[in-house]
């Protein structure tokens, strides 16, 4: 490749960057940079000039309104990486984040607390066992002899809770009891020395926080596109990580039609670490894929023929996390590896590793980041090495002697203060001696024949530093396209540049690099959320969380189908989703005044599901693709991960299938009841008795109803009916102390019950939310009633043989206690003033025999609904509390 005959003018000064820095939102607009006379000795009367930036570029327009999923979401669910809220101290979160300062307050105590709660055995195992006799966990007061050697932990826990509740309160005082306890046992209670543990934790927290601010382990991106060898069939292979821990490597064949879709099942490899980077190189008709995880790097060979299986070639292990892996575009099976200890290796599958450099210090000035990068250059034996301060090239044959500086963060390249190298990339497929370097502010194109002076510089104005870049070389006479991608903001920017602008048309010499067209923002994954149908709030939240996961990779391909040219851009998210968008090339039309994209992509409109402006087929398929993806997504989320959801019991264990099976349809009785209920509701009246008398078998209900009645005559008659009138008489005439006491207690209970009745009926009539309350109360219902049988047939103590044992009378106290505890009532959102009423009501039910007439038939059928069943299962199970202090 020839060197440009003349370069754009620029000053050259050595030294540290002088210009004051800072992210500037619009720094990349409105500048030509410099101009150059286009071609000396032209025949024209006037000289013509070309700008470094500002010539019109190719027009590419998005075919869809949003990015479309390529693959269905994987079955396992994704565990989001920690958010600032998890690490930072609560009150300082907003303030510090807004200020953008890194001096955030880490919530050290919370994390340490988590450790104690999650690993009590590791934290206090042996002492806990030794002391467990001396710690009392009950609520009752301790008796005299025990008090000497035992302390009541519940009081301590209460104190801690109180402290927690007052967090952030300016008048917060330490409870003396807590202080006393911590003074007493801080030194010996912990299994691991507290100071050491705290040091480790603090280090880890600081690291987590810095990786949250900027995670450079993803540099380079974990997505690769391998185009097929014969360019006719639009097929390619997508190499991407997946699985819950992103430790599965997939080679998926993809057919590029209107929308790319997967063909066949992918070749899959399970690796032993999270995949950070996937790099690919095309040499001699075959692809080499390098995969980097923290401590392992591997290389695969993918034969050029479609359908040929990828073969793993070699794996290396590093002691220090690797930060870079690039594949040689020149020689098969050659890669370069960098580790965070500052070592650069040339890795050949045949000859093994060759260390080129080992230097824990940065090259040009001191920077704390251990990040290193390396890539290939135009000379197969010369590799570039980069750290945050710049790039050097070194000859693998004599790395100590032969090296030169390619790029320096300094005045040479016109850098700003605080600017750092983020991603270097060899642009060999477009121009053998050109190099891309991105920083958090700008992108530079360098020519290794003219080191230190960028041939192109442009402020990219991205909100987050571009960690991913992808080059799509243009054919001679057309611009090259570069995609820049950021991780946490999911930004995608399309740029075009020329490496020769008049050379082709006039047959003259090459000319300097030129940025053409304007940068173009592409759809991010998260942007498709606004086009999706609205979901239930919690699902919407999950969806939003999933779609706005940081980007983890970027790949693209140009597709030329005769006159129709299109560009496909794949974006990978940390959750393992691959989304794709198509850009269509608009052949040099004069820019039509009312630009179409202005009309369709205006904010607020959602043309994805309705506007088929550009692609008549694409619309349907895109919408369909979304629907399918959403379905698979919700299916994957139905089985919630254990650790994020409150513990619950499977209802399948509580009830057999037959139990849960409702009657085939509502019985005529139920129908009648419902109709009646509806009618009464319309009239605004009330129902005092649930069933028309005509429908009731007369004797039974009477008995049951009277069981609670105080009338002695009825009692006597009942006894006579049952055949034990003698006993009744005995009771009546007995004067024993015990019996009288019992009678008294009985009476008291009856009074109470009567009160309960009154207040309950009052609440029934006064409240319009009666039905919903009832359904909430139905938690107790099923324990009294087998839902498979109509209520009127339910007889106490006589379950038909073969049906599962129905707990009826008296119900076991466990669920009731749980239900009646004020905590569980509070959890269910029942206001305080109501709780007593409810408790009374429930106690009536629990103690007395069931009163079928009080139970509406409709309610019985309602019990079959899974929703109320799950309510039951979660409610009837006593809430498990986590051990607070690790005991």
């Amino acid at each position: 490749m020839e060197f440009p005959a003349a370069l754009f003018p620029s000053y050259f000064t050595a030294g540290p960057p002088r210009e004051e820095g800072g992210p500037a939102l619009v720094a990349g607009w409105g500048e030509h940079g410099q101009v150059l006379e286009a071609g000396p000795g032209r025949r024209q009367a006037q000289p013509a000039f070309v700008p470094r930036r500002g010539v019109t570029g190719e027009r590419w327009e998005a075919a869809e309104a949003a990015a479309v999923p390529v693959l269905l979401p994987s079955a396992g669910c994704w565990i989001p990486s920690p958010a600032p809220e998890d690490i930072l101290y609560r009150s300082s979160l907003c303030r510090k984040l807004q200020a953008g300062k890194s001096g955030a307050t880490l919530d050290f105590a919370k994390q340490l607390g988590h450790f104690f709660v999650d690993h009590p055995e590791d934290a206090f195992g042996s002492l806990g066992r030794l002391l467990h006799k001396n710690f009392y966990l009950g609520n009752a007061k301790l008796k005299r002899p025990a008090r000497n050697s035992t302390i009541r932990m519940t009081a301590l826990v209460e104190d801690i809770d109180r402290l927690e509740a007052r967090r952030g309160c300016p008048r917060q005082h330490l409870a003396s009891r807590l202080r006393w306890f911590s003074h007493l046992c801080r030194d010996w209670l912990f299994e691991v020395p507290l100071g050491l543990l705290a040091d480790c934790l603090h280090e880890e927290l600081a690291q987590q926080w810095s990786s949250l601010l900027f995670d450079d382990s993803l540099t380079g991106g974990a997505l690769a596109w391998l185009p097929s060898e014969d360019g006719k069939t639009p097929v390619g292979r997508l190499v991407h990580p997946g699985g819950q821990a992103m430790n599965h490597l997939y080679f998926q064949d993809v057919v590029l039609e209107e929308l790319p879709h997967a063909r066949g099942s992918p070749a899959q490899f399970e690796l032993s670490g999270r995949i950070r980077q996937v790099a690919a190189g095309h040499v001699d008709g075959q692809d080499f894929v390098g995969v980097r995880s923290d401590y392992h790097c591997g290389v695969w060979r993918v034969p050029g023929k479609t359908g040929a299986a990828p073969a793993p070639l070699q794996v290396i292990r590093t002691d220090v996390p690797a930060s870079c892996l690039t594949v040689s575009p020149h020689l098969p099976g050659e890669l370069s590896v960098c580790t965070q200890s500052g070592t650069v290796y040339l890795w050949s599958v045949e000859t093994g590793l060759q260390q080129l450099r080992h230097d824990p210090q940065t090259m040009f000035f001191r920077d704390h980041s251990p990040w290193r990068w390396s890539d290939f250059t135009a000379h197969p034996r010369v590799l570039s090495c980069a750290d945050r301060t710049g790039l050097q090239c070194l000859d693998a044959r004599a790395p100590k002697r032969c090296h030169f500086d390619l790029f320096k963060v300094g005045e040479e390249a016109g850098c700003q203060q605080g600017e750092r190298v983020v991603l270097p990339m060899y642009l060999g497929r477009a121009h053998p001696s050109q190099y891309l370097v991105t920083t958090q502010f700008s992108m530079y194109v360098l020519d290794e024949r003219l080191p230190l002076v960028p041939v192109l510089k442009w402020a990219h104005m991205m909100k987050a530093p571009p960690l991913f870049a992808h080059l799509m070389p243009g054919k001679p006479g057309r611009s090259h396209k570069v995609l820049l991608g950021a991780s946490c903001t999911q930004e995608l920017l399309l740029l075009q540049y020329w490496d020769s602008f008049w050379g082709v048309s006039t047959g003259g010499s090459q000319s300097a690099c030129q940025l053409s067209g304007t940068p173009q923002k592409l759809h991010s994954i998260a942007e498709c959320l606004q086009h999706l149908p609205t979901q239930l709030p919690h699902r919407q939240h999950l969806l939003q969380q999933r779609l706005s996961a940081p980007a983890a990779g970027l790949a693209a391909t140009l597709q030329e189908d005769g006159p129709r040219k299109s560009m496909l851009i794949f974006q990978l998210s940390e959750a393992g989703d691959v989304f794709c968008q198509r850009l269509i090339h608009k052949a040099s039309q004069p820019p039509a005044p009312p630009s179409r994209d202005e009309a369709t992509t205006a904010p607020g409109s959602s043309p994805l599901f309705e506007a088929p402006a550009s692609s008549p087929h694409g619309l349907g398929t895109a919408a369909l693709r979304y629907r399918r993806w959403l379905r698979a997504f919700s299916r994957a989320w139905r089985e919630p991960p254990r650790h994020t959801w409150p513990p619950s019991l499977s209802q399948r264990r509580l009830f057999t299938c037959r139990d849960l099976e409702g009657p085939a349809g509502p019985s005529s009785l139920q129908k009648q009841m419902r109709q009646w209920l509806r009618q009464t509701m319309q009239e605004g009246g009330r129902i005092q008795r649930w069933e028309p008398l005509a429908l009731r078998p007369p004797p039974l209900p009477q008995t049951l109803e009277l069981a609670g009645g105080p009338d002695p005559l009825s009692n006597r008659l009942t006894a006579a009916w049952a055949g034990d009138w003698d006993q009744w008489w005995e009771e009546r005439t007995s004067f024993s102390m015990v019996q009288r006491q019992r009678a008294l207690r009985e009476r008291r209970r009856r009074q109470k019950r009567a009160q309960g009745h009154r207040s309950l009926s009052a609440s029934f009539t006064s409240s319009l939310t009666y039905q919903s309350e009832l359904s909430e109360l139905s938690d107790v219902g099923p324990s009294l009633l087998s839902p498979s049988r109509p209520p009127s047939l339910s007889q106490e103590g006589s379950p038909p043989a073969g049906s599962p044992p129905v707990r009826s009378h008296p119900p076991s106290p466990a669920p009731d206690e749980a239900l009646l505890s004020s905590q569980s009532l509070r959890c269910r959102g029942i206001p305080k003033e109501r709780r007593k009423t409810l408790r009374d009501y429930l106690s009536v039910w629990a103690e007395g025999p069931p009163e079928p007439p009080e139970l509406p038939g409709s309610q019985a059928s309602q019990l079959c609904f899974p929703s109320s069943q799950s309510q039951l299962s979660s409610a009837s199970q006593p809430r498990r509390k986590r051990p607070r202090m690790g005991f």
Partner: protein
Amino acid sequence: SSNEHKLNFKKSKEACLSYIQDALLQKQWKRAAEFLTCYVESLEKDYSREHIGPSEMIWRIGTEILWRHSQSRMKEFNCFMEQMKTLGVKRYLKVCLEHVFHLLCNGQIDEAYQNLSLAESWRFGEQTAIRDKEIKLIQAYRGLLDYCSWSKQKKILLEHGEDGFADLAVEQEMHSYFRKAAVNLKEIIKIPGIWDVFVKCYVDLLEFYGEHNEARQVLNEYAYNSKFPANPNAHVYLYQFLKRQGESKKSLISALKILHDIVPSHELMIDFNTMLQKSKKRKKCQLGLEVIFAALDYAGWKENAKAWSCLARQVKQIVITEKHLDWIQQEWNSRKDWWPDFHFSHYLAKRNWQENKSLSHEKALVAGILLGKDCKYFKYVSHQGCKARLKRFRMLKKFVTRHNPVYLRISG
């Protein structure tokens, strides 16, 4: 509450700016322009301390919109630029320079010249380093435009001169352009930087008036001053100048030798190699071999048929004479572990054969000598060549087979 007002104002300003940015990045020029009219309010209370103030932002955004908007006209653009110049006095020269660039790219050379002259005479505030650089650039571009006028006059003069008609006024005008251009151009090329255009123009002026020594001095300074970046073009210009001056082979070779040292992959290396091959000195011949081997190390030269024929010619010559086989051996030693995969793989043999027969012929010759007659590349190409009944491939096969012992000596 004034603080709160300040805060709110700042917030809405930021929001507006992000809307503009969004519109610009999606090429919605009209929408961006509408937002920009709102953003102009931000000038009213400018509390920002950022290094790009609102006035510069408005200038940048407005310029971008006016460039790209389909309905904008040059007149409006000029009007906007004039306003921007008064608005952002701190960046006056920068705005001027960009305005001039735009005029130049649109062919309005005279307007650009006027603007440059105006900007040059502008004085305001204290002199800073940045402003000093900008004023120098403005003068240099004015010099460039003066040079353009000069060469236009020169062309007229030469055309008319052929007719035997010399116009004194034209000549005088031309001289005045020369003086103005020379003064300004001379200034800028003293400062370290990349001034390819200015240097070329200045040297052209000097050469026309016969001041060869100064021209040589300028070019030497541009090429060899260590404060300047290692610009290959500086050496190319010097080499071209020496060639034009009819300098001796020796000085040409020494100029190219330095270029070879800094850019071994420069396209002039072919000329250099031919020059060296013709030389009778052994040292130079050896350097020639070194140069062509080094050039072919680079990915950009992989399919350069010219370079391969240079190498093939020289290798053939050495093999026939059987002298200096050690030169080849020396070069080959540092390459034998990677050239076979890089240049002589089976895949490349196939592709080169399909795409460029003469390239594959030259490469096969080199491969046959360096790697022996059993190497994949040579075998494939000679087989295909013989199958296609091409005479030169049959000759090639014969040549390589005859000289196979050479391979053993080189690799041994």
